[in-house]
Structure formats: structure tokens, C-alpha cells
């Protein structure tokens, strides 16, 4: 039984008179403890896929089974509760609240799950310790560097012990050294047995994960899965192929 099971997911938008097929029949299984990246250029549908996987959105058709629960037709209230308990988000712009201290930011998800303030504090500090940020707990986000902010955001994503962590371009706003540090942190989480999904447009970032899924025009264009065998192609090759494609498109 996989952790996440997508069957024939469609998502269409109506923009003006036009119908846009953001997702066009995506089926996908994700097992517990996997480290996956979803790659694709902007407009490919990868963000839509992440939103649906992250319970921020519901598909037009198709079924999703998350941890034994059918969530494709869940109510907004149920989705909020699932997001709170089973899913952790890490954003490109960190999305920390500037008026709260780091510890209060980390406590936020637990406020919505209704824990006591004492328990919230303990768990927030534990979570911050796991990303080596416990000495910054009283700082405001504006007093931290980008890497520290992202670590605080990871601590916040971890604090409710989610089944799966989604990171949307987590290094997009960081310099390359800090970005590597953050990617290393996700790798560490994977080593500890957590399920992590990176969403990125950058094949180089995707290369840190064993399994990579490429989305193009709302469909799974290419999938590299070590379980299914087959050597993962070198990323130089992928890059070359991509630049070939862009050349074709522009010419």
C-alpha cells in the first residue's frame, strides 16, 4: 500500500473562454520514505500537481488516496485538517510571519491542531534543535539570513510530524552554497525515513533525489525510478536535451 496513490488525475481551468488542462491524466504512486523530485518548466503543471498532492486544491476528476484516506472529494475543512497533520510545506520565499519570533512561527501549525502552549513550546524547541536553530528561537525572521529562515521554515514543516514534506523551489531564493546546505538537510530527513518531495524547475537540484518525475504539458513525460531499474541519466544529458528543446521552441 503506497503512501500516496494518484489515479488518472485531471485538472482543468476555465480562463476566459479557454479551457486549460493543467493536469491531463496523471497516475502516480509514492511510497513512504521516498525522496522524489518533480521537475518541469513553468506552466508544465508541476505546481498544480503539488497543490493537489498537498491538499491545497482538489482535482477535477480522478482519485487520490493519501495514507488510506480518499481525499479527492474531501471538504475544505477536512483538507485543512489533513494539511495540518499529515503535510509539511516549505516555500521558496520561506513564508515566515515577520511579526512573530522564530519559535512562534514554528508553533503556528500546533495552534491549529489545538495543543497546549507548554506542549507547543517543547515541540517547537525540539523541532528547531533538529535544524540547529534553537539558539535563534527568539529572533524575528528579519534578523536571520536566508538559509536560517529556510531552516526555521523546515522546522515549522516538521513540527507536526507530517507523513510527507513538500518543498516548492526551496533553494530558489538562496545562494548556491546555502542551497546545497538546505538540500543536504532534506537528504538527512530522507535518511531519517521521512517522505520528501522537491518541486523544482532545476534538473541539478532534482539530481539529489533518487526518483525524479518530469512533468510536461500536464502529463508525466519521463520518470526515473531506481526501483524499476534502469540507470538514471546523467544530468548533463538531461540539460542538453532541455536546451535542445528550448532551442527548437525558440527557432
Amino acid at each position, binding site marked *: 500500500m503506497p503512501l500516496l496513490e494518484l489515479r488518472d488525475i485531471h485538472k482543468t481551468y476555465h480562463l476566459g473562454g479557454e479551457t486549460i488542462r493543467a493536469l491531463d491524466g496523471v497516475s502516480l504512486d509514492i511510497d513512504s520514505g521516498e525522496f522524489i523530485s518533480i521537475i518541469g518548466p513553468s506552466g508544465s503543471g508541476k505546481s498544480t500537481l503539488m497543490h493537489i498532492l498537498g491538499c491545497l486544491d482538489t482535482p477535477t476528476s480522478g482519485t487520490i488516496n493519501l495514507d488510506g484516506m480518499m481525499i479527492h472529494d474531501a471538504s475544505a475543512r477536512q483538507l*485543512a485538517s489533513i494539511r495540518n497533520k499529515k503535510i509539511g510545506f516549505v516555500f521558496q520565499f520561506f513564508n515566515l510571519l515577520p511579526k512573530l519570533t522564530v519559535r512562534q512561527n514554528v508553533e503556528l501549525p500546533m495552534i491549529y491542531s489545538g495543543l497546549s502552549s507548554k506542549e507547543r513550546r517543547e515541540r517547537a524547541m525540539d523541532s528547531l534543535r533538529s535544524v540547529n536553530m534553537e539558539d535563534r528561537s527568539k529572533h524575528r525572521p528579519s534578523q536571520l539570513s536566508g538559509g536560517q529562515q529556510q531552516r526555521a521554515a523546515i522546522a515549522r514543516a516538521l513540527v507536526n510530524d507530517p507523513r510527507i514534506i513538500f518543498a516548492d523551489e526551496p533553494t530558489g531564493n538562496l545562494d548556491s552554497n546555502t542551497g546545497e546546505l538546505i538540500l543536504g538537510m532534506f537528504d538527512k530527513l530522507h535518511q531519517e525515513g521521512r517522505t520528501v518531495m522537491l518541486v523544482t524547475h532545476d534538473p541539478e537540484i532534482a539530481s539529489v533525489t533518487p526518483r525524479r518525475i518530469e512533468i510536461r504539458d500536464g502529463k508525466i513525460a519521463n520518470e526515473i525510478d531506481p526501483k524499476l531499474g534502469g540507470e538514471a541519466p546523467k544530468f548533463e544529458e538531461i540539460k542538453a536535451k532541455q536546451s535542445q528543446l528550448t532551442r527548437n521552441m525558440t527557432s
Partner: protein
Amino acid sequence: MRFISLFILGLQEVYAHWFRSILTMLGIILGVASVVAMSAIVEGLEKGMRDNIIIYGGLNKVLIHDSDPPDYQNHIADTSPGKTLNDVYALKRGATLLSHVSPEMGHRARITYQRRSCYPSEFIGAWPVVLQMNRHTLKYGRFFNELDERGAKPVCVIGSHIRDRLFGDPESTDQEINPVGKIIHINRQPFTVIGMFIEYMTDAEQKRRELERQNHKDRTGPRRNARYRFRRDGFYHKNNVVYIPINTMWMRFKVSSGTDDTPEPNLTDIDIKVAELTHMEKALDQARNILLHTHNGVEDFEFSTYASRIASAEERIKNANLIGLIISALSLFVGGIGVMNIMLASINERIREIGTFKALGANDFSIFIQIMMESSSLAILGGLLGLPTSFGTIWLLTQLIPQQNVPIITWEALFIGLTFSILTGIIAGLFPAYKASRLNPIEALRYE
């Protein structure tokens, strides 16, 4: 538990923009202050009116007023002689349930002494019984008696303000002047002052004067350049009276106004006092029967009792209260609009944050509560700050406009002010909170 945490979150938001929050709260603060101040002023007016009625005679005093006779008596209305001394004699003889009957014959007057002059509030010809009827106490001299009455003597008894104006008041001359024996002119006719009433004053006034005396203990001699200012408190008119015997009034001032050779005998007022308050109804029926006799059956009079005066005063107060409440509620409403405006602006600049809240697992209701908590903490803080502000406002008002009726702040007014401010905040928060809670998380997260 969750509510408390969300409330704290709201407070933090309010604190983060403390200057903006204070400006927003100012609307609520002034709204509460105006509600409390308005009701305190009306409350003061109400107490002033009640006190006034008691000052001028007490519960068992009844005034007999002229009134239009009923329509079916229009054809005989002219046969009634109106209020005359005959009524008074008849009442004295026949109305056994009355303790006092006091005729009053008023006139306009200008009073002069040497080069000073003044106009009294009341210049009345009366019987000695007026002393009990209007609850007067003498300070100097005596009141006029039966002999003065029979002889229509040119004597008068004056209130303390008349003394102050004609002879100088104790504060500016630094001595109590006893006017007894002085001759003053009332409408150019000489009268001898034979008595003066004590100065009636409110407790507050008494305290003020004591304080002043203590502050200027070392002062000797009269206060220079001091202009005498009359306090228009509840006792103003009671201090500003001149009484003369009714026959003197009749003989000297009503002579030319009669329609035949006799001076016009009509009275301006008949005041009666009921012996037992419990027999008020019976006593008034008795008086009515007697007066119907003397007025040839024409009912051209009516009784004005304490209860009826209180009722009409209360009616006026109720209207004033309602108008005041509407006006002050309007300012609270403006404050509420300010809160709503700020909340809408605040959620608009925090759309990304709200998206984050939702991604972290906040459901619509949590967001709704969170925003509501912000607006209601603004309102509660504003309301609480409004209470001391209302005390300040009233203090300022009494300093600027010293008036007879000291505003009274009641617990009810404070409670109502606070409740309404909180309600305003809650209502003002409803729409912004609803708007924020309905945001689509994906669009909110993407919002730049």
C-alpha cells in the same frame, strides 16, 4: 485553548502596528467617551430637575395653573372670574385636606438702590404663609406679618442675590452686608427692606467656596478687580426673589390695570400644600369642587403636582437621552467603520500570510476567528481606554462650562459604553474576517 492562542496572535498583530492600532482605537475611544459623557450629562440634568422641584416646595406642593376650559364650556368661559383671592378664602375655609394655601400676585419689576439696579426672577405679593410654602429661611430681619398685610405697608423681603447686586456681595467686599432698614426702589416706589433670606447653595458650591477660602487665607481686605459672577445653579431663582405683602402689590402696582374702578384682583398663582401625601387624590378633588364653585362652574384651572411635573420633566429627559444616545452612537459607528476599514486594508496586505496560515492547516473558521480576534481586541482595548477618557472628557466639560447640573457617571453608562464598543468591534470585524476566511489558499500563496 485555541481561542486564547488565536487571541494572543491577534494582539501581536495589533501590537506590531501599534501606531496604526492607536489611531484606529481612537475612533472607539472617543465613541465610548461620548456615550458615557452624554449619558452622564443627561443624568446630571435629571438629578438637577428632581432637586429643583424639591427645592421649590417639596412633594406635597401643588400648583394651580390656568388652563383652557373644555370645549363644551366655551360659551360660559367668560363668566369665570379667574383666580382671585376669593378662591383662596374659599379653599382656606372649605378644603380641610389642605395644610397651606398661598396666593401669589406677580409683577415685573426693576429694583434700584442708589445707582445700582437689578431685575429679580420673581417679584411677588404674597401672604406670610409663602415662607412655609416655598421653604424659605430668614437670615436677617423678619418676614412681613398680618399688620403689614392689612396696612399694605411698603416693606419687602429680599433674596441674597438681590442684596449682592444692590449692596455688594461678601466675596468682593469681604464683609457681610445687612440690608435690613435700607430703602430701595421697586419700580420707582420706595420700599424698606425688612428681611433677607439666607443664601441657598448646592453642596458642591459650598465645597468650592470653602476651598477658595482656604486657598486665599492670607488675603486681607476686599478682592480687587474681582467681577461678581452669578452661579446659575438650581438655587439661582430662589436666591433672586423679592416678596412684598399682597395688599401692597395690589394697591400700588395693579391699580391702573383693572377694568373698573377697583384694581385687578387676579392672582398669578395659587399654591397649595396637601396635609397628607396619601390623601393627595382626595385633597385635589376637594379643591377642584371648591374652585368650580368660585369659578361659576368653569373648569379653567388645572393642578400641577410633583408627580405630574416629574413626569413631564422625565419625558423631556427621555427625549434628550434618546437624541444624545443616537448622536453618540453615531460617533461609535464612525469608530466601527474605522476599524472595518483598517481590517480590510490589513488583510489585503497580508494575503500571502493568510495563504501561509491556510497551508499550515488553518481552516476557514480559524482564519475567521483570528481576524475577528484582531478587530475585537482593538475594540476591547479601545473601549477600556475609552472609560478613563470619558472621565477626562467630563472633567474637561465641567471646567469649560461650569453649569448647575454636575454630570453624573453611572455604572450603567460605563457598562453600556463598553458593551457597545465591543459589539461595534465584533460587527466591524465580521466582513473582513469573512473575506479573509474565504481566500483561496493557492491564489493567496501566489499573491505578490
